[in-house]
């Protein structure tokens, strides 16, 4: 029974890896560790289960696999049944990134990203801002939310729509979660976008925003925000987080 559960759990991790969806749950730095451990667990449990089945067959022939030979009571009593159930259920559970609800819950961590002065200086030196990631923009806007040098710069970022609960009807944040280890430590990063979005898109929907940075008034303060030229709905990517 134990080996069947291990077989199921390791198969699940291997399935996530082979479909490129491991990044939905953990930081990509753990990919190789996951590949090695899940492969070893799969091989171990596969060989063990096969050996057990052969041993059962050698002892009792095909009768060993008849329903009568399994004591239902013994199986049900075993707490491992719960684990077996879990091993099967995880394959049926939806694989989705964290929702905007978690971003709201962790709003106190919004754009809480630290960087070194060297990294910040090298970011300012780079000129092709269209290639900047959402994290890099968040770092720059954190450093100076009203930096006039950035006005007019081209920007192209994708993420989910997050409304920070402000009364401003034509404002949303294009956001992603930053993950250090796995989804439990995810904290939201985002850049304000000024656009009429409520009729066309829904909160938590994934979009690609292309535009330029301009200074606008947000909560009574001048801040840089994206004035979009194009907002395009996109599918949720396999790696929805920033690492």
């Amino acid at each position, binding site marked *: 029974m134990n080996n069947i559960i*291990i077989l199921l759990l390791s198969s699940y991790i291997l399935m996530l890896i082979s479909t490129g969806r491991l990044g939905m749950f953990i930081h990509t730095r753990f990919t190789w560790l996951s590949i090695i451990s*899940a492969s070893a667990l799969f091989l171990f449990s596969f060989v063990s289960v096969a050996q057990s089945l052969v041993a059962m067959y050698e002892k009792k022939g095909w009768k060993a696999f008849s329903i009568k030979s399994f004591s239902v009571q013994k199986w049900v009593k075993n707490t491992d049944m719960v684990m077996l159930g879990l091993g099967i259920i995880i394959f049926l559970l939806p694989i989705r990134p964290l929702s905007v609800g978690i971003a709201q819950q962790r709003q106190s961590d919004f754009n809480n990203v630290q960087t070194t002065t060297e990294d910040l200086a090298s970011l300012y030196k780079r000129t092709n801002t269209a290639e900047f990631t959402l994290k890099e923009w968040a770092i720059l806007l954190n450093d100076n939310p009203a930096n006039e040098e950035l006005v007019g710069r081209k920007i192209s970022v994708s993420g989910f729509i997050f409304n920070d609960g402000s009364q401003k009807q034509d404002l949303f944040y294009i956001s992603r979660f930053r993950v250090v280890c796995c989804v439990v430590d995810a904290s939201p990063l985002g850049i304000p976008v000024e656009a009429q979005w409520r009729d066309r898109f829904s909160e938590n929907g994934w979009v690609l925003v292309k535009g330029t940075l301009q200074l606008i008034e947000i909560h009574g303060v001048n801040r840089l925000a994206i004035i979009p030229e194009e907002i395009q709905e996109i599918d949720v990517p396999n790696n929805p987080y920033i690492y």
Partner: protein
Amino acid sequence: MSNQLLAKATDFITLFLGLLVEAIPFIFIGVVVSVAIALFVNSEKVFALLPKNTYVRRFFLSIMGMFMPVCECGNVPVVRRLVMKGFSVSEAITFMLAAPVVNPVTFWTTWEAFSGSHEMAWARLIAAVVIANGVGIIFSFVTKQETLLTKKFYAQVCEIRYNDHYYHNPQSKWEEAKSIFSSEFIQNTKMLALGAIIAAAFQVIVPREWVLAISGNILLSIVAMTILAFVISICSNVDAFFALSYASSFPLGALLSFLVFGPMIDIKLLMMLKNTFTIKTLGLIVVLVALSSTVAGLTFHILWQ
């Protein structure tokens, strides 16, 4: 409303699976080490090599994590195996508390994360060694060490120690390894799953700002970061990068408490240890570690802030 509930349910599933998928490789490493100890380590020879003085021996155990660079989940099977091999429960507790912090990966990530304040990496290491030894010494005063263990685990320990001494196991090494590996792996994963369910539910239900809102002064900041460490159950090998993101809003002393308490105690770890130690033992460990990591945080705050 129903959409919100659905979103909360999918977030719960994502958080639960995240914890499970992230921890399984570390449990795998821990169980492999546990199997290796079970099969290839001769207890009598090891005890002969270890220092005779109990305090020196305990200190030695508290730095053994240097050879085992995995996080807290991976250490649980090793802790269980140490007790089975004849180490006292208090010595196993010392190893358990120190190993997730006193290991090269944790030290290196703390050093990198707090590159502007290398005192943090050293303070974390020293605090973990001191706390692990201190808590271990307190538990060593319990005369009947077996009362610290659950009855089921103690029965298992007795059986294994008896077999080691008087009975030659007729199974081949492979058969024995297979049997130890699968039962240890499932025992730990079962409790990890339970811990992950509780931790994920807590994260979905309780907004993080409630926890962080109590950070009024240094003591309250330490309490807030300790609760956060308990709730998020983050892996000790990378928690320094997470703690760093709070450097602008929390004093370094509170971050040290987070970095010391988190690897020693969190929701999923407590669930995993429930199979080994009694509830009373775990309760006392939590109280002692919480108090001493608070003192460590306060001391660091006074000396370096």
